[in-house]
């Protein structure tokens, strides 16, 4: 039964991560476009650093780093009169009240906490890629349109929200759909973050079972379980491809792009 719930875990992760990563990306892209130099540097550095390094490194790094950062901040707030150093040799020691989740919390709190750390990590990594795509898309919106908007007396902010943002999606969609495919294919890495996902259960349930421990003994079936996962991901990719193509057709309607022009000609 848990194996089927694990598919739910993966789908939930995708459903939650995609909007958050998009928000991170939007933030990064607007920061990189900003007129304020330090903000621009932050945006560009965010995009450059995350993209240059294998993202599995980030997955392994952020989970510990975020965990320690949160506990460190809570430690500073909740136990101001703690006098021992936090790093004692190879140990990371904070006071009991600063532990997250608290030692006496129920099991589901631990699972939810682990899962949210995973979501945040995915969002940070994929946010950088989304930022890059959106940054390019914002620049692809024909410049004459922004100038026209400003000639009509719109402020910088108005022209950004009313002209650039509605139109950038058609330019961003090829990049974003590619990113979605990669995000789907990155979900098995959840396993490395310690979440009990489908990879975990495929390994657990597929391993050989002896009659002593289970009613359904079988030999080593892990190959078949992973084969099933392979098929699951292939179907998922195919469905996404079809859906994204439909969205693209919808978004192109009436746009000043080659595809939009072709649509207009076909309709005439």
């Amino acid at each position, binding site marked *: 039964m848990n194996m089927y719930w694990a598919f739910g875990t993966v789908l939930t992760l995708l459903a939650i991560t995609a909007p958050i990563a998009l928000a991170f990306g939007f933030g990064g892209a607007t920061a990189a476009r900003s007129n304020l130099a330090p903000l621009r540097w932050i945006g560009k550095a965010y995009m450059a650093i995350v*993209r*240059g*390094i*294998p*993202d*599995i*490194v980030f997955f*392994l*790094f952020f989970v*510990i*780093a975020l965990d*320690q950062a949160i506990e460190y901040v809570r430690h500073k707030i909740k136990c101001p009169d703690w006098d021992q150093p936090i*790093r004692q040799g*190879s*140990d*990371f020691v904070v006071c009991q009240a600063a532990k997250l989740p608290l030692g006496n919390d129920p099991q589901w709190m631990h699972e939810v906490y682990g899962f949210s750390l995973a979501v945040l990590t995915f969002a940070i990594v994929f946010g950088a*890629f989304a930022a890059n795509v959106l940054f390019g898309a914002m620049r692809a919106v024909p410049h004459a349109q922004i100038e026209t908007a400003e000639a009509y007396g719109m402020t910088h902010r108005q022209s950004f929200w009313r002209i650039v943002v509605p139109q950038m999606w058609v330019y961003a969609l090829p990049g974003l759909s590619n*990113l979605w495919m*990669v995000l*789907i*294919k*990155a*979900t*098995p*890495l959840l*396993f*490395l973050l310690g979440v009990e996902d489908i*990879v975990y259960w*495929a*390994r657990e349930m*597929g391993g050989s079972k002896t009659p002593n421990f289970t009613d359904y003994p079988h030999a*080593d079936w*892990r*190959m078949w379980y*992973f*084969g099933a*996962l*392979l098929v699951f*991901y*292939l179907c998922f*990719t*195919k469905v996404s491809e079809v859906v994204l193509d439909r969205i693209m057709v919808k978004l192109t309607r009436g746009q000043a792009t080659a595809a939009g022009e072709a649509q207009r000609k076909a309709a005439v």
Partner: protein
Amino acid sequence: MTCYETIATYAFRSIGYGERLLPRSDFTLCQQFTLIGSGMIWNIYFGVLALLIGFCIATLVAMGKANPSPYARKPAEWFIFVFRGSPLFIQFFFAYFLFLSLKGVYPIFSPLTSATFGALVVLVLNTSAYTAEIFYGALQSIPKGDTEAADAYGMTGWPRFKRVIWPTMLRLAWPAYTNEAIFLFHATTLVFFAGFPAFQQRGDALYYASYFADKTFNPFIPYPILAGYFILMTLCVIGIFGLINARLNRHLPSANRKRLRIRPQIIR
């Protein structure tokens, strides 16, 4: 132990020379640099071999996909779809357990259950699929005039392919292929996290980095070291591929040559 001794002891630890025991306490910065660097040997081994073998297979698959005959096209399309549509992580797991089952029946498969050969096979097939798609795209965008000129000279078959189609395809595909090479090196970090066992703790760079992070509970030292190594390697790849790019485009006047634009992206 001085740093020089550490390097002498651990520099080739990942391929089985030098001290068997990994350091267990009092980790020095030098030990971390040396061991993680030693692990890079594996990343380079997987990356270089997979690139070389994958290049040849990819050319064949791309020609197959561009072939009008369905007997050549369909298998190539399916090969590309299966390997591009599913996560590399799951492919590693599936392949490992597949080889494990095969080994039970035919002992001849036993070398494939080790990372050295088994993971290499998976990486080769995976990169062939991605590269074949790039090459196929390049084949489709070969200027019509080039092939028409070849026909006008009466070239057919092998000389036509070798002197006209293949060089033009490489020229067009090269920037995208450079990106693919960078991803491939990033993807090599997955090997020892996906089923394949690290025999006698001989692992790749990420294996040692996570070893240190687990032991010291401090991710802020080993992972940045690993990131540094990977950035260095990415720069090397870009340098070598840039040289080949210059050689491929040597007939063009230098001002017209397109500079390689590197857009490193994501794992699969």
